[in-house]
């Protein structure tokens, strides 16, 4: 057998061994065995000295070719083995993705504050300032300045927690109208404000009454603000809170501090106006009170009603939230059962 045949044979054996290798270690052994200095190819090449000068380079080149071919096969086999190993590892590392995630607790804002924040943002976008006021008010601001003198029948409408003869828990956020009217500089432009906060009534707490609840007062005063502007503004509020399809309806009402005074109904969001239990089968739901600011209120605060006028409204975040989310008991807002509070985690716009 000539050298060439021997080399051919070595190559065929080597390639077969490489194909059948089981792991990286074995492959390495094969590499050393086949291509190393004591390997069979080197051995064969030692026999070259017996060849003619002509043939030597040819056989040498052929031997190199075989070496490279074997090295290439090894290289390829390394890649195959790596792939296999990776597959093994991935399989080994597989987890159950249906197991629950590690709990990371985030807090839930109180639903009433969500409602208030949302309305604040709406009005700020419309150019309103947010004004705070005291929860302990004077009789003067809570009543007298709001055109509710002593012995006025409307004082019966809002039973009051008095502290002294002159100090009381505010029964509405309206006194902030008077306070703001007194301090506003009309030379710097119109007054547009909302005033959210807690208010108090002398009520026994039950499903529909709470001695503490919330109000958002709104007030816009300028040289020409109309009742149509009030209607348009309330439409924006109703649609923002209860959905774009809502219609509003104004009905005559009475508040001592507005004239004309109105109650505002929205078309029922539960039935769309067909009539259902939410709207007591009328298709409409009463949501807030409003009106054009009474000239006496402006006068008392030192604003000339001949020049300035505008509208005011008072809405109840508690009532809004109860309607919107179907809450039947107002006490739930203040009992703070975590199961109640946390359900409003969901973004509820």
């Amino acid at each position, binding site marked *: 057998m000539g050298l060439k045949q021997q080399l051919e044979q070595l190559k065929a054996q080597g390639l077969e061994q490489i194909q059948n290798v089981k792991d990286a270690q074995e492959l390495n052994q094969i590499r050393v065995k086949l291509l190393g200095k004591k390997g069979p190819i080197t051995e064969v090449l030692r026999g070259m000295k017996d060849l003619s000068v002509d043939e030597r380079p040819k056989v040498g080149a052929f031997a190199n070719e075989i070496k490279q071919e074997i090295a290439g096969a090894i290289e390829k086999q390394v890649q195959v083995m790596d792939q296999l190993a990776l597959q093994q590892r991935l399989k080994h590392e597989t987890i159950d993705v249906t197991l629950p995630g590690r709990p990371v607790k985030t807090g839930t804002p109180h639903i009433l504050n969500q409602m208030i924040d949302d309305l604040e943002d709406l009005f*700020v976008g419309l150019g309103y300032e947010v004004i705070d006021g005291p929860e302990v008010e004077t009789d003067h601001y809570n009543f007298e300045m709001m055109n509710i003198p002593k012995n006025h029948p409307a004082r019966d409408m809002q039973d009051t927690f008095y502290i002294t003869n002159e100090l009381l828990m505010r029964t509405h956020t309206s006194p902030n109208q008077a306070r703001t009217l007194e301090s506003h500089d009309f030379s710097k432009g119109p007054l547009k404000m909302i005033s959210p906060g807690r208010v108090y009534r002398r009520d026994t707490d039950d499903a529909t009454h709470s001695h503490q609840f919330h109000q958002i007062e709104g007030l*816009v005063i300028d040289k020409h603000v109309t009742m149509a502007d009030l209607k348009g503004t309330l439409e924006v509020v109703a649609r923002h809170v209860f959905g774009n399809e809502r219609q509003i309806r104004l009905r005559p009402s009475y508040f001592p501090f507005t004239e004309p005074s109105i109650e505002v109904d929205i078309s029922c969001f539960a039935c769309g106006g067909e009539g259902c239990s939410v709207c007591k089968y009328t298709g409409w739901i009463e949501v807030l009170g409003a009106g054009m600011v009474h000239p006496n209120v402006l006068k008392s605060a030192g604003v000339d009603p001949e020049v300035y006028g505008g509208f005011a409204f008072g809405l109840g975040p508690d009532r809004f939230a109860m309607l919107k989310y179907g809450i039947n008991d107002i006490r739930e807002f203040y009992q703070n059962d975590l199961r109640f509070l946390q359900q409003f985690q969901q973004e509820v716009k």
Partner: protein
Amino acid sequence: MKISYQWLNSFVNLHEIDPQKLADQVSLTGIEVASVIAPDQGLKKIVVGHILSTEPHPDSDHLTLCQVDIGEDEPVQIVCGAPNVAADQYVIVALPNSRIAGNVKIKRGKMRGQASEGMICSLQEIGFSDSVVPKAYQDGIFVFPEAEEAGQPVFPLLGMDDRMIDFDITPNRADTLGMHGAAWEVGAMLHERPQFPEVKVTESQITTDSLLQVSVAEKSLVPQYLLKVVQKVKIQPSPLWLQIRLWNNGIRPINNVVDVTNFVLLEYGQPLHAFDYDKLTSHQILVRRAQDQEPIVTLDGETRELTSDDLVITDGQKPVAIAGVMGGLTSEITTETQNVVLESAVFDGTSIRKTAQRHNLHTEASTRFEKGIDQGSTTEALQRAAQLLEEIAAGESSRGILVGHQELPVERKLALDPKHVNHVLGTEITTAEIGGILSDLGFEHQLEADRYEVTVPLRRWDIFIEADLIEEVARLHGYDQLPSTLPVGVQTVGGYNRKQLLIREVRQSLLANGLDEVISYALVKDDEAAAFTAHPTAKIKLSWPMTQDHAVLRQNLISGLLNDLKYNLARQQSNVAIFEQGNVFRQVDENQQPLEVPTVAALWSGNVVDESWIEKARPVDFYDLKGALTNLLTTLGLADRVSYQTDELLPELHPGRAAKLMIGNQELGFIGEIHPSLQHDRQLPPTYVLQLNLQVLLDQEQKPLVSESAAKYPAVERDMALIVDHQVTNAEIADLITTNGGNYLQNVQIFDVFTGEAIGVHKKSLAYRLHFQNPIATLTDDQVTQAMTKIQTALQTEINAQIR
């Protein structure tokens, strides 16, 4: 007041508009209608029966067999248990398969073996409230006063086919608490002028002042006091048409005289009172203040002790009525009454309200005086009552009216400028339309120089100023006609002030740290008010609380949070991490508004991490809450300005696990574990709380944030462990390290705290990692070693630290 559709229709042509539709329209233009009541709702097959004969039931001692004509060819037999059943009565018969009150179905049947073709009914059985059924028929069947055609439905005969529209009035519209006022209101809406029957009294030759004298001592509280006498009245039940008007409005018919006063009350809204002339001890009527403790027995049989703030009508000697509230029993109209004194008056509303409240005696009369009445019809109402007594009680009216006092208000004259109307409403209502609305209202008006001069009738005492007239125009023109616009004019930039922004940031931070937001009550129990308060003020108490649970204004927010915790623990919710933002109230002076301090408080109890498949449970500790606090302060850029002091702690806190929070010398608040004894008393698990005075945070100067580039040169970290005495705090060590660390020391981190026998009793080991960095060059080893040496020397000399 419930407005009868049929009665209303006698004044205003309603054009047969559906009552519900009418009610809806009234709600939109004037007065909210609470409901429309149909007295015959749910009833059917109830007819007039004529009892032809009766005989006792053979097997019962209280049942009667009646042969009743029900308009059929043959009479039917009905068994009746009423004691007052008798032959020849015209009665209410519920036929077989009829429905009576309470949705009860009547069937043909047998009673003790005798066939009964239906049932003879009481008024209650067909839906009348017991409180309106005439006394004579209260315990038996109703008997029609006159013959009625048998077999016809009873509903029209009893006024049950009427529809009662329940006006839920606002305090300014008491003018509709009478049919006349209601007719004006509905008429204006329908563009129909109401027509009222003419009042015609015959009057005898005997003048009123020959029968009575009157004087009014308190004229300011009695703007009008008018009397008339009706003699020789024949007391009997009123005709059915009048009784119907009363019972449909919830008033029980008594007798013709009393019924007439109530009828005129409903008609005019003017309360009237009738006295028995012959029971007055003298005929010198005096209206005066009662004497203190003066007694009177009122019509309801109660003896009442009066005060000098109560107005009374006296017969010259004793009170015979509490003015405007209720008459006295001694001068009550009875079946023996022959001569009647009729009183029509106006009393001061405030005075009446106080009297009604004082005696807890609220009547149809007192309610109307409180809310106001049409002072223009006081005289007419008196004449109307006299006329009715002539007609239905065969009375003879005395000639003329005896006037104790009469001072009529002046009719207001107001200008109404159509330009103002449209300016305020944002409308384009024409001058003519406005004139039309004024006509509909029955307000006299004239156009002068483009403005209306309007005369407001006395029946609309709620209208004072032009704005009130604008409201009349607006509502009758229709709010649905109003355009929808948004305010134009100078644009304003809305926004939040610094306090509002800070509050939002504080809330956001606590939410991000996993705390749920709560809202508790600001009014708390007395002993809760000043708990957890370092420097309590005098308590601010309600003068008349509804309950002791909500009687005093809070000076801390923790009490509320603890209540919320208890509430949740009682409902198996034990992991409670909550916060509240709200005001606490500090008294400045008893007669001044308190200081309302914006405050935030948090409470954390239970597990921070619950046991799950992936991790073990971990109960909350001090450092969880402190971590949340640090995050909050970092958001506000104040973390490095707050110090934790462990002296002068609140008694409600664990003395070893709490701190007072200070910014400079200002007290920011506190953080710590609830004192174990308090936890024990209240049966609470370990609970951590914190409270911050947000005003203190607001008072801090805001440092503008200036950014720095991220360092370009490598940092060097060095660890250092040291052993110190147990009482040495981390803050002291960190302070020493920072002050001695040189310019390149960026950050000191504690990464280990250890106590144990190995390092000695009363000792602890702490380990710190120090980060050095030079922003403009690479640090050399020498520089860092130098800094470390200085730090270690300081620690050794200052706190006797043993460096390891």
